[in-house]
């Protein structure tokens, strides 16, 4: 048991570090990494693309991809080492998480040789940006209940319907979409998977305004959008299997800070805020609560290290990885709520110039519900842990063996 790099990891860290020092500026220790902004401007996107092209040209992009697609054929641990080092430098936000982490591997697994040759290197170099078109207003956690249709028309398909929660659709060039091609088949059997041109006629992208005022996601409307059959990934009716490949590649949160940085901020706030005429940090109820937050944060951090160790020993991370998000997402909301409680009546103020730490906790409290929902809700993650780790019985499915068109549905959209 140790926290040291293996010789191979150390060598790669040194190499990565040297390149980063030459090409980027070191971040101040307290300066958190730039999260992907809400509604990025053209300048941010251009900077992200330029940084990606530079990394690609000098051999530091898509590290785990095979060399034939522009990757470096490195291990996932070396990729984590890279991420740790890159995070120490001021770099543009990463707009390629979904493309490189999920869509690329899907294309590698299911694409024809022509499709791989056509798309993968460009995807890797980042000049063509991809988005994912999966969720729909009536198909979120129950993704296979999606209704966007693709109907055969000559040598192509015509797509109609609506997708939602598509991160980055507004700056993407291409997307991967799951559609229903056979409403008479059972739910999971009637789906097909396509690559779609986001600039094609009939594609309309609309930002969604979130409860925190930001707009990181989009609705995407498809009105008679023509897609050539050569853009199909996998067989007609086999779209669910292709989609599962995409979903399996959703990144396990590895080597994340575990919220420990935020914890220090919370301690600082407890020093600043007053309770009974003394710093709140001297209040026993506050201290007990802080201890629990710290212990959970550390538990998450060391769980990440256990996962990383399994990776470096050549094991595939299993569904245990769901713990990170199942616990981490509600934890960040709880910490933010407690921080606002410490502020007393000032917890009802949200003003950068007046609120402690420039409104950090107000922002966090408004943003945190999104983390509990996106990429698998708290509830879905508990199902995953229950069914795939503890092997408890799967949910009863009343819609399993019926033609899709006979499955009753409500509508979540306002008329």
């Amino acid at each position, binding site marked *: *048991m*140790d*926290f*040291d*790099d293996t010789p191979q*990891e150390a060598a790669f860290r040194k190499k990565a570090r040297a390149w980063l020092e030459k090409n980027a500026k070191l971040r101040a220790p307290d300066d958190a990494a730039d999260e992907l902004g809400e509604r990025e401007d053209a300048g941010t996107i251009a900077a992200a693309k330029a940084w990606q092209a530079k990394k690609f040209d000098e051999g530091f992009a898509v590290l785990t991809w095979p060399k034939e697609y522009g990757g470096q054929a490195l291990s996932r641990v070396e990729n984590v080492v890279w991420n740790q080092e890159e995070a120490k430098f001021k770099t543009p936000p990463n707009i390629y998480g979904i493309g490189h982490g999920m869509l690329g591997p899907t294309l590698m697994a299911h694409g024809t040789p022509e499709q791989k040759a056509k798309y993968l290197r460009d995807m890797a170099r980042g000049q063509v940006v991809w988005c994912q078109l999966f969720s729909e207003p009536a198909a979120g956690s129950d993704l296979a209940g999606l209704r966007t249709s693709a109907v055969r028309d000559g040598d192509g398909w015509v797509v109609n319907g609506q997708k939602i929660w598509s991160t980055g659709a507004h700056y993407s060039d291409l997307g991967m979409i799951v559609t229903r091609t056979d409403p008479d088949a059972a739910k999971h059997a009637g789906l097909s998977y396509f690559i779609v041109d986001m600039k094609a006629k009939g594609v309309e992208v609309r930002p969604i305004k979130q409860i925190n005022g930001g707009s990181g996601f989009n609705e995407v409307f498809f009105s008679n959008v023509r897609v050539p059959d050569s853009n199909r990934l996998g067989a007609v009716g086999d779209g669910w299997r292709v989609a599962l490949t995409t979903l399996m590649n959703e990144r396990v949160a590895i080597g994340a800070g575990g919220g420990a940085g935020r914890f*220090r901020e919370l*301690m600082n706030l407890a020093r600043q805020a007053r309770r009974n005429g003394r710093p709140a*940090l001297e209040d*026993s109820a506050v*201290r*007990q609560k*802080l*201890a*629990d937050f*710290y*212990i*959970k944060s*550390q*538990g*998450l*951090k*060391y*769980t990440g*290290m*256990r996962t*990383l*160790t*399994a990776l*470096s*020993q050549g094991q595939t991370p299993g569904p*245990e990885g769901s*713990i990170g998000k*199942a*616990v981490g997402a509600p934890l960040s909301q709880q910490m933010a709520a407690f921080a606002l409680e410490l502020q007393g009546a000032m917890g009802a103020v949200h003003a950068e110039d007046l609120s402690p730490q420039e409104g950090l906790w107000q922002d966090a409290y408004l943003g945190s519900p999104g983390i509990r929902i996106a990429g698998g809700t708290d*509830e879905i*993650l*508990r*199902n995953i*842990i*229950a*069914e795939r*780790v*503890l*092997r*408890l*019985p*799967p*949910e*009863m499915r009343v819609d399993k063996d019926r033609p899709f068109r006979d499955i009753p549905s409500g509508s979540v959209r306002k008329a």
Partner: protein
Amino acid sequence: MNFDFSEDQKFVQKTARDYLVEHSDLAVCRAVLESEQPYDKNLWKGVAEMGWLGAVVPESYGGAGLGHLELVLIAEEIGRSLAPIPFSSSVYLATEALLRHGSEEQKKKYLPRLCSGDLIGSFAVAEGLGDLDGAVETRFEKGKLTGTKLPVPDGDVAGLAVVLAKEGSGHSLALVELGAPGVAQTALKSFDPSRSMGRIELRDAPADRLGEAGRGRELASALLDRAAVMMAFEQIGGAARALEITREFTMNRWAFGRPVASFQVLKHRMADLYAAIELARSNAFYGAWALSHDAPELAIAAPAARVAASDAFQLAGEEMVQMHGGVGFTWEYDCHLFYRRARWTGAALGSPSEWREKLIQRLEKQHAA
């Protein structure tokens, strides 16, 4: 980075599990719980022969010369099997105290007997309600101890106690042989009768200082940190076993035409329990690393492991009873064995809220530095 146990260490764990599956069935725990005997003497002899009592003791003192990374995995198995023996008091506390602070003479005198199991050690800190190391009235003067220690985990069956006492204007640790004149040991009715609690009354009992005079509180606190990590593994073992048994039961118990394990409300609660156990395990791993490297990080890692593991085991015990329904509340089912053990282990080294406070005090110091 390698944040895992080695193959050799895992082999030690497997050996321990195999042994305890054979010799420490839950029926063994129940037999102690239902009888007047304070612990299972055969099992105690058996684990001594396996070398576990002296796992981290050098061979020259009769030990097995292993490290703490092996010992914590044995502890996990002790916890899984709810072994009804005074393992934690003798091994994590008394033996550790001698190893770290004993003079050569003290080590020679006591360690071989602790390793062989002929002598049971205990750690006597508390004097009644509240914080474990709160007010101490017991005095150590001119080689004699006077005062009452209550409760002392396994204090009724121990032959040797490490006692925290006032000495002059400070505190010291002292070793007292419990068969000596001036010592009275009584068994208390324990919340978990498969693990003992005792009272030790000392009246001019001959004692021998352990470690430096005047540093008793500091030494006791550091020893409790070490024990907390080892106990955390015991608690995690117990919690994981409770979840396994509960899973089996809910898979086979049918209601409303389906296994109760198929109801989402139970699935989600079992998932939450699993997450609590794994987060505790991760904190305990870090504690084990700090323990085995004598790292200063132990001051932070130990309370984190202690709280996470105590809370996870408590949750496991409570959920186990609840998810079994009516039979969970019967004497006949084993749920109460876990429910009781969770409480006993959660209290014996001081309550989790006491350890939360310790953690914050230490973080304040660290942030100030």
